[in-house]
């Protein structure tokens, strides 16, 4: 099975061959590296830009204005902060021009902790991203999702911010991407660049097929009666890892892979059934996106609730420390999740 980096590469290849993608670019995106996580290796339209995040975002906006279709990358979201006014502008261009100028572009950036990345390779961006009206915000949790969401993002006529959980880049999926060879080794031989001299290397692309995940929808991964968990990105996997400790019909796990627009109807139906809900993500906890969802739950579903809605998120500290003691104390861990779930399930109204 493909890992997430390979899945992104396959989707981008599909995009440049079938969906009119003209430019895939950013720092180290082109040859010889093909992206620091190898997600852009071997792509026909990939090229290296100067190490200049504002130039990357600005160029992407200009390319979109000129009718090109691009996927730009900021190497780590920790370095996207100096582009914030350009991101605001990309989001408001259609609105501020009264519908005259649209910017169909995809900006992808790796997010989150989990690789011992210290202060500048561990940040999350979902809370800030959801405060950029006009953008669509997505984040996958499996390679197949990564593939489907990237194709959806490329096809979308609006700017799409594609957040990639960097800790999942090397994690293999459990489902084949349509057209992917069954043997992992075969896929590697076809599309992974060799170590060393790559100057003569060319990928052999499998005959992949289109697969999309609708932006604005969510997936209900498990049905349950006792508790709803709404999460996305690598926190989906954290939840999956402990679900086996709960009875089969206990936990309703919702994968909110589209953060904005989001599938409120699915969240609503679930919370009306369980009466208890946990919003889980790894961004810092103050003015967290989960707080918006918790507020909305309280406001609209108050009389369905059996326990107060809860947000479990990263600690509001200035950075993610390098030592595992610091990172693990900052980002929700299995024990934190289990404690929050148990408290919610046993809370007496």
């Amino acid at each position, binding site marked *: 099975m493909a890992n997430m980096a390979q899945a992104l590469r396959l989707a981008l290849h599909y995009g440049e061959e079938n969906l009119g993608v003209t430019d895939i670019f950013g720092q180290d995106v082109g040859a010889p590296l093909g992206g620091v996580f190898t997600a852009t290796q071997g792509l026909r339209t990939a090229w290296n830009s100067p190490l200049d995040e504002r*130039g990357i975002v*600005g160029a992407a906006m200009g390319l979109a204005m000129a009718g090109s279709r691009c996927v730009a990358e900021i190497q780590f979201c920790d370095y996207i902060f100096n582009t914030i006014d350009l991101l605001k502008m990309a989001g408001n261009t259609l609105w501020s*021009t009264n519908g005259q100028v*649209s910017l169909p572009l995809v900006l992808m950036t790796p997010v989150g902790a989990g690789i011992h990345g210290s202060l500048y390779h561990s940040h999350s961006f979902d809370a800030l991203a959801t405060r950029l009206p006009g953008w669509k915000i997505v984040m996958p949790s499996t390679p197949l999702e990564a593939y489907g969401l990237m194709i959806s993002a490329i096809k979308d006529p609006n700017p799409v911010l594609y957040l990639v959980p960097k800790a999942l880049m090397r994690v293999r999926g459990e489902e084949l991407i349509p057209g992917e060879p069954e043997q992992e080794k075969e896929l590697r031989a076809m599309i992974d660049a060799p170590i060393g001299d790559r100057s003569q290397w060319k990928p052999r692309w499998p005959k992949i097929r289109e697969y999309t995940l609708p932006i604005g929808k969510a997936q209900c991964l498990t049905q349950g009666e006792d508790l709803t968990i709404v999460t996305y990105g690598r926190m989906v996997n954290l939840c999956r890892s402990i679900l086996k400790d709960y009875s089969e019909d206990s936990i309703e796990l919702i994968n909110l892979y589209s953060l904005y627009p989001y599938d409120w109807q699915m969240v609503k139906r679930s919370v009306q059934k369980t009466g208890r809900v946990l919003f889980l993500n790894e961004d810092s906890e103050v003015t967290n996106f989960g707080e918006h969802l918790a507020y909305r739950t309280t406001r609209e579903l108050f009389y369905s609730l059996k326990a107060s809605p809860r947000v479990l998120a990263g600690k509001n500290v200035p950075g993610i420390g390098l030592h595992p003691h610091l990172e693990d104390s900052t980002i929700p861990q299995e024990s934190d999740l289990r404690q929050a779930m148990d408290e919610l399930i046993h809370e007496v109204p």
Partner: protein
Amino acid sequence: MVKTRILEERLIRIYKAGQSYFWIGGAGEEAFGVPLGLLVHKGMGLKYDWLHMHYRATPTLIAMGMEMRDSIALTMNRASDPSTGGRNFCNHYCYPKWNVAPVTSPIEVQYSIALGTAIAQSRIPDGGITIVTGGDAGTAEGDFASSLVWSSRKGAELPLLITVQNNLWGISTSYSTQHGEEKISDRGKAFGMKTLTFDGNNPIESYIKLQESMEYVRKKRKPCLLEAMVSRLYGHSSASGANWVEGEVDCVQTFGERLLKGGLLTENKISEISNRYDEEAKRISQNLLAEPGPEPETLWDHFYLNRESGNWREF
């Protein structure tokens, strides 16, 4: 030049009469902006020139054929404002039919956004060029450096005309207190660019220098950095009063005097031209007073394309 000056002065009057919330504009940049508008290859698509301009671009737009009404409707934030539908400031134009990218308030972003249209134009034969305009203060921002770095990469040069209208002011801060470089255009030399600085208050010199620079970029498909020395005749914006500033060169007056001296115009003709445009601008603004602004229910329109809702209450 007279038409755009009369228009800007009408916009200031509209502001001072309490009929708009803000004025910012291009009074003092006519001798640069009008030649630019006359020389641009106007149209839609990569074959034509792209313009990424700052908020003093009225002279260029007027020279390109913009109606006075468009500018006044924008200033008065009327629903019929063709650039923003009443959503943005005076002089924040947008004309997709002429490749005029949306003008925004940040003073530098156009220098990095322009890279994208220039990249797209660099790939087609006989493509147009991208022209970016901005003020001297904005050159301190990183986006200006981005335009120099990206456009001059060896083997990947861009057909980008980078222009700076240097009025020697950034709001209330003088150029001399913030710049060590003698000329802004000198910065282009480090990137191997063609560079030039000229008197942007002289429309004939502006026309010749702009024509020469545009032809260079058009033919060589390489960038050029030009700096035009201009005036700022009513201060930064209405925030600083929008009052006439003494001691600055008034390019409309000096060019008028030159034409009078050369026998190409008469005092009567100048008065007739000025009065005609003034009457027109006054009539338009009076008519627009009766026009509605955008309706409150249009607030969420154009959040996403194709009427897709971005209102979370509707998710």
